[in-house]
């Protein structure tokens, strides 16, 4: 499957991936509208970690042996057979946070109004995930594994 490869040596910590991720998952999908008009403010599903000059963005790795899937008490978390992405059905998720506990990367968060989880969906349906598309330094690249 195609996965997002993180290249920390090129991450400059601009956090635009977070911005574009949040907007991609907002109502309007428009930068200005999403940030200036939507409440609650859109939340990114990618996280930039920074320490001194080191930084990198991290989002769901869509692990081959994803512990979050088995941890899900409702079966909301599953692997999309087409893309191979680990996706969460927000209609099924009840916010038990088991997946948050199980994710070794800490890349599942509490999402919409803190009721359901929020995680990278690889922007399924788009040609390229928003973070990859908009990373100005190609620190995130989509690659076939």
């Amino acid at each position, binding site marked *: 499957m195609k996965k997002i490869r993180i290249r920390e040596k090129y991450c400059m910590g601009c956090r635009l991936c977070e911005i574009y991720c949040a907007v991609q998952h907002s109502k309007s999908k428009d930068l200005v509208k999403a940030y200036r008009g939507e409440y609650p403010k859109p939340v990114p599903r990618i996280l930039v970690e*920074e320490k001194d000059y080191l930084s990198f963005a*991290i989002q769901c790795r869509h692990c081959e042996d994803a512990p979050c899937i*088995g941890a899900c008490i409702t079966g909301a978390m599953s692997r999309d057979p087409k893309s191979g992405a680990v996706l969460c059905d927000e209609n099924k998720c009840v916010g038990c946070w088991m997946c948050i506990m199980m994710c070794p990367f800490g890349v599942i968060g509490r999402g919409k109004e803190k009721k359901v989880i929020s995680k990278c969906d690889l922007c399924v349906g788009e040609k390229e995930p928003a973070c990859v598309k908009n990373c100005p330094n190609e620190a995130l690249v989509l690659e076939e594994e």
Partner: protein
Amino acid sequence: MAKYLIVGNSAAAVGAVGSIRQVDKDGKIVVVSNETHSLYSRPLITYLLAGQVDKNKMSYGDPMFYRKNDVEEILGKEVVAVHPAEKKVILNNGAALPYQKLLLATGGRPIVPQVEGKDLPGVFTFTTLDDAKKVDEFIKKNEVKSAVVVGGGLIGLKTAEALIARGIKVTIVELADRILSATFDRKASEIVETALRERGCELITKNTVWKVTGRGVVKKVVLQGGVEVDCQLVIFAIGVMPNTELAKSAGIEVRKGIPVDDRMQTNIPDIYAAGDVAEAYDMLMSTKRQIAIWPNAYAQGSIAGSNMAGDAKNYDGSFAMNAVEICGVPTISIGLTDPQEAGYEVLEQYGKESMVYKKIVLKDDVIVGAIFINKIDRAGVFRALIKSKTNVGIFKADLLRDDFGFVWLPETFRKHMVVGEGTEV
């Protein structure tokens, strides 16, 4: 003939079906359940009771899961005997089901204390969909206004929360001096207790039920020491015991649960056990014991399934942990959260205003436990650190940082963590 026979129909069964089908696309799988409902998510029953989940949406994940995986479900039947020598099981209707590989995922059943009035209408346990339906009907029929939940563990609290959501005044009775005493430390308990009280829930600790009284129907609960609590509903949630009888009768080794090896096999070949009934390896305790939580049941079922289908896989063990949100307070507890012995180091952070609580327990610079209350977002990283037994000595000071994450970990660890997952570090 079933190639794979699974007794029990919850997390372990689902995990097993998934991994069997990864290896064996055609081998016949049969699931026997003593419940009459097709596969559903058992933890959802409190959400159902609270009205947060529709009764039509109780299925586990995709309602077509079994159909897609070509699984035959036998519902409402009890397996009454296992004949390992003949490789067959007998159902309560006398039918014999031969198998090649057998998985015992019989789970547990709630413990009901032998107190007076335990059989009165209005007294329930709460672990199955039928329980939820009965309680729901009872509440509606009797216009229940107040209830007593006996037991301040997770099931008790989730049930109490559901009842509160239904507008019922709830009193929790807990034998210990605080709720969630098994997984939380005192501070964590207090935060959750405060949240419960804020929702009008009453907590009575260091006490337990002496008797339940009422004429034809529950009227009140009398506690040890004579304290009386009026209520129309009593839920017993003081614990669960594993369903080991079947195994025992078949000559399978049984302790508290069914001990299994690292391939989830019991002492009898081709018979596996997984889930709440199994005693598997606890990494932190360095012993085999039951850890009755969903992720473990699924993982064990999955390992068992792989091995049953001939794909040798080892279970690398687990440890106690849980994630739960109670009355708007998200919590995660992992491992040894409150060791009393010497030799542990504790890092703590507590915000009085935010009610954010973070606690990390270390032994010899290795994390062995952690609690996260109200801010839980990256708890999984700590679980991974516990599991990998990483020495955190050099970045110990950073563990409590708000922005603690991968970037603080040594490069070698990051590399190790992300091998094969597309991260160049």
